[in-house]
């Protein structure tokens, strides 16, 4: 395969891990920061802090892209992710529920299972990846990711997917508009009588049997 031939770096490594280059050191340091920010982002109970740590993680990833000479992708990452996606996420958080301070219901009950799954996945993937690419070496020639190169390949070889993607974006745009249009006519206003259907106020938990609760909720849903 010419792809592998072009890479030509599956040969046994002559470069050890113990004498890292400058780019590698920077990469690892930024990578640690990205990882730390990502962990805090999924772990913190303060919702908006989570989104802001996500900003740090994504910004760090943009730096990693720069280090991998994918310049154009890095700026796209900053423009789309930091400029739009995270702002949208923050917007969504603030429009739903984003109190200052900790929210007790940020994590669900199966946290430990999730942790287990994640650790297992991490262990498997890292073992696999390290085993497979221990000896591979990236030749970081400059200019591989400049705008002109990326643009040329995008519009020479990837035109059809590009156009398909634009259709997808249009569909997403229309979908978002349809979803977020207010349906004042469709959604009936909550009536006071319905909200107070025989709710046992201050009763013992035993009194809140499904029979007392479910008629209204099941009918409505």
């Amino acid at each position, binding site marked *: 395969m010419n792809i592998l031939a072009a890479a030509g770096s599956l040969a046994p490594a002559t470069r050890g891990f113990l004498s890292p280059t400058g780019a590698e050191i920077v990469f690892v340091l930024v990578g640690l920061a990205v990882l730390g920010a990502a962990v805090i982002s999924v772990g913190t109970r303060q919702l908006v802090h989570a989104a802001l740590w996500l900003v740090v993680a994504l910004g760090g990833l943009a730096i990693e892209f720069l280090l991998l000479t994918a310049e*154009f992708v890095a700026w796209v990452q900053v423009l789309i992710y930091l*400029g739009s996606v995270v702002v949208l996420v923050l917007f969504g958080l*603030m429009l739903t529920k984003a109190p200052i301070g900790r929210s007790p219901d940020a994590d669900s009950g199966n946290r430990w299972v999730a942790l287990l799954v994640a650790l297992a996945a991490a262990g498997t993937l890292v073992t696999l990846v390290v085993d497979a690419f221990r000896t591979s070496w990236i030749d970081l020639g400059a200019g591989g990711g400049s705008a002109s190169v990326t643009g040329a390949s995008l519009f020479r070889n990837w035109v059809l997917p590009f156009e398909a993607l634009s259709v997808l974006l249009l569909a997403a745009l229309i979908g978002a508009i349809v979803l977020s249009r207010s349906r004042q006519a469709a959604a009936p206003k909550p009536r006071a009588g319905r909200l107070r259907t025989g709710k046992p106020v201050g009763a013992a938990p035993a009194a809140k049997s499904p029979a007392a609760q479910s008629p209204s909720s099941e009918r409505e849903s």
Partner: protein
Amino acid sequence: MNLLDTLLRCVAALVVFLTFPLIIGQTEHKVMAHMQGRLGPMYAGGFHGWAQLVADGVKFAQKEDIVPAGADRRIFQLAPAVSLLPYLFVLLVVPVGPHGFVGQAVDAGIFFVLAVMGVGVIGKLMAGWASANKFSLLGGLRTAAQLMSYELPMVLAAASAAMAAGTLSLTGIVEAFHWWWLPWQAIGAFVFFTAGLAELQRPPFDMPVADSEIIFGAYTEYTGLRFAFFLLSEYAGILVVCALTTVLFLGGWHGPLPDSLGWLWTILKTFALAFVVIWLRVTYPRLREDQLMRFAWTVLVPLALVQLALTGIIKVAISQ
């Protein structure tokens, strides 16, 4: 030598970043006053109040730095820096004159500029949310919505200029400029400048800081130096948007004088645009929130698309 050169350029950008916004601010004081039949500041510094903003700065520095009790302390304190720093980075890549008279030439310059300017929104959202004040939150949300919707026409208009020049580099765009770009890219320039104005939340697009309804939007709870940083970011933003419009659409350093005086042209054009920004502020009343959104989506975006189509057609026509 190389390191020294880089350092010197960075320091120069920093100096510009710290002085030019003040000049624009002082110009705003005076121009606005005269347009309203007043004189503006007359005392600080002696001659026509030239040191008014310095005095303001001293006053801001003396004020107590207050963080509201219910606020999210760290984010509240971090927000001004987040909204200020992107403009500094942008200023670093704006070409001032020919032959490498630029802080730091970036290959995908226009992309870098738009990307980094987008980050400033986060600072304003942070400020609005962390203040623990519903007016601030409203202001922050309005800011975010406004900036998101005006970023699209801005990027499209900038893309038109990049298309015309055939490069993403800001220096390259200025080098490719010809005088007949002015009529050709007029719509794009209008869209870019207007969208930039909206990105800065300058009047008439200052809904997010509409003082008659939501006090001062996201900045309501800020005092002292942090507040000054927000103000500085607004004026630095004027500088950046005007400089970018100059570079992208008005031909940067091109002018009747020899190339060695090109930087003068860039600065002149930038300040002329800054004057227009101030002029618009004095002239027009504030748009309502829904008018603002409608203007972005039903006027600016179609105009930007028209400009893109026009650019494409003419570009193809002249390349054949």
